[in-house]
């Protein structure tokens, strides 16, 4: 396909459609509104559903309802709306409903500065909802990557029956770049798994060897129960520990045993690097520039660009930092993902570069941390 000038938000919408998304429910919020606007025009064209709900809570609820009906479904919001969605994101994790939640991060807390970039929702993506649960969160650093990671988000959601969060930021969402989108036929699409068993044998939460029991959409003859209560293999509420514990172990195991598939990242010269920069999202762009400048000055600097933030790629970071005496973690917040990096490589090697005033981290800021 020929290159087109495209905004990150548009690329997200197009990526969703390419992944097979047929349902979008959302509520206007800067800087994610363009995703909804693009979906409002595009989804009806492909026979899908766009609906603007009365708030963000209703949006995520409608998305989960549509997913239960068999659709690949998505919503998009920013920090304030993301906060409102948290309870139902937990519901999706609990009931194991595949869906994609896009958070185009803006400066917070509260209303903050709607058109300023931020990476302030990294921990919210991990722990925003109450209770222990696994989650997958991806962070793109370019318009093209937004398209690709949106497709990946849908595929992970379907493959692992889990909500997946796409953590964009204001710059990636609003920035326009010339991009060449992949041929739609070449895009890998994971579809909802089917079951071979008849309705009377079907258990929506069965402890199968795959750890991911198929979720059969409502209306196909498999009548069963879905609840946010702790439930047994059939989906019925339970307080029995011998039913709750295997379930709890399974929902973590289904993510943990598939890390090689889920962990997406790019390494650039980490082998033998004396300094390692770990970055994601818009900051990874400044980091790439800083690394290039440092190398021109003869420094052995590596870059680890994380695309999967959650589950945190512990071993990837550990390996990449093996030869590094210093690990620099620049973030558009006052230190969120760095806590994980410090946990893995130890605090003494880590140097933070932070900004949470709506301005970007410059390559020179990262260079200065290498000194």
């Amino acid at each position, binding site marked *: 396909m020929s290159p087109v000038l495209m905004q990150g938000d548009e690329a997200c919408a197009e990526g969703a459609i390419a992944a097979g998304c047929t349902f979008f429910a959302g509520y206007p919020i800067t800087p994610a509104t363009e995703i909804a606007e693009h979906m409002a025009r595009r989804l009806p*064209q492909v026979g899908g559903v766009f609906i603007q709900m009365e708030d963000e809570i*209703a949006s995520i609820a409608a998305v989960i309802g549509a997913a239960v009906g068999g659709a690949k479904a998505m919503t998009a919001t920013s920090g304030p709306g993301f906060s409102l969605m948290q*309870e139902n994101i937990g519901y999706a994790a609990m009931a194991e409903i595949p869906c994609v939640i896009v958070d185009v991060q803006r400066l917070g807390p509260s209303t903050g500065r709607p058109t300023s970039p931020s990476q302030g929702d990294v921990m919210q993506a991990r722990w925003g909802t109450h209770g222990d649960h696994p989650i997958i969160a991806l962070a793109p650093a370019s318009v093209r990557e937004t398209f690709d990671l949106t497709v990946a988000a849908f595929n992970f959601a379907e493959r692992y029956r889990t909500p997946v969060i796409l953590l964009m930021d204001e710059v990636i969402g609003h920035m326009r770049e010339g991009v060449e989108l992949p041929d739609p036929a070449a895009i890998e699409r994971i579809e909802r798994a089917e079951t071979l068993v008849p309705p009377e044998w079907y258990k929506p939460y069965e402890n199968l060897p795959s750890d991911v029991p198929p979720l059969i959409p409502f209306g196909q003859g498999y009548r069963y129960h879905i609840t946010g209560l702790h439930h047994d293999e059939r989906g019925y509420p339970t307080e029995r520990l011998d039913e709750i514990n295997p379930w709890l172990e399974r929902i973590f195991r289904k993510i943990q045993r598939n890390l090689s598939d889920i962990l997406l990242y790019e390494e650039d010269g980490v082998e033998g690097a004396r300094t390692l920069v770990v970055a994601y999202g818009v900051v990874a762009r400044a980091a790439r520039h800083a690394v290039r400048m440092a190398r021109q000055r003869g420094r052995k600097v590596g870059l680890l660009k994380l695309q999967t933030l959650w589950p945190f790629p512990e071993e990837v970071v550990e390996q990449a930092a093996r030869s590094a005496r210093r690990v620099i973690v620049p973030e558009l917040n006052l230190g969120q993902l760095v806590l994980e990096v410090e946990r893995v490589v130890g605090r003494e090697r880590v140097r933070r570069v932070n900004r949470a005033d709506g301005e970007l981290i410059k390559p020179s800021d990262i260079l200065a941390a290498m000194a």
Partner: protein
Amino acid sequence: MRPQRESRIHERYLRHTKKFPNIWCAGCGIGIVLGAIIRAVDALGLDKDEVAMVSGIGCTGRMPVYVDFNTLHTTHGRALAFATGLKLVRPEMKVIVVMGDGDALAIGGNHFIHAARRNIGLTTIVVNNATYGMTGGQYSPTTPLGAITSTTPYGHIEPPFQIAELARCAGAAFVARSTVYHVEELQEYMTRALQKEGFSLVEAISYCHTTIGRLNQWGTAPEMMRRLKDDSIPLSLAERMSPEERAGKIIRGILADRDDLTEYTRRYYEEVVQRARREMEWIVPKSVLPVRAVRE
């Protein structure tokens, strides 16, 4: 003699595995409401595979687990929003939404008025017990003025919402109210609500005797049931009464039954999708469109 199909109805609609006894207190009216729903579904001959029951949180929220439909027990207040998503991707399904008064009118009040305004084809049943029963009897949006609850120990100072009137004003296509004493009337309204293509609401009054009833000395469960009979009047009678005479009465009847509205899902697929596809065909030749099958 009762007809054969009535006598075996529980075997066909209640789940056989691992859920009984139910969680409701002896004397609770929620089971009566559930019975009325089941009989309405049965009378219409609906296919169980095509029926979904969606609920929120609370005593009424526990209703779906007992019935052999496609059942979805969601978060507090959000049942209508979940159901909206489900209905939009499964327009052929009958989606029944059951909620309590706190679920539907307090935490879920926003979704309630907007679902009614959209006129989306959801059959909504609100069991109005005038309190938060599951958490032990706090005041709800329908608790009567002056009532004692666990959070109004000195008396309630807020006026109650009129659920059915609110739904009618918000644009619902069908609105009716009855009580758990008037079982056959309740069932008739549910049957009509299920037949309505647009948003329908049936309010079933079923005051909680365990919490608010006990705190206000409204009597035992049977006594409170008798009060539903004595304190309620049909709409036709209420219309002939003065406001003073009507005060404190439960008005039973069909408050709205509109045929001038188009159901939302139908409208979406027949208007929005068709327009979008016509526009696409005009801009780009059909052969290059990645168009999926449209749900007609």
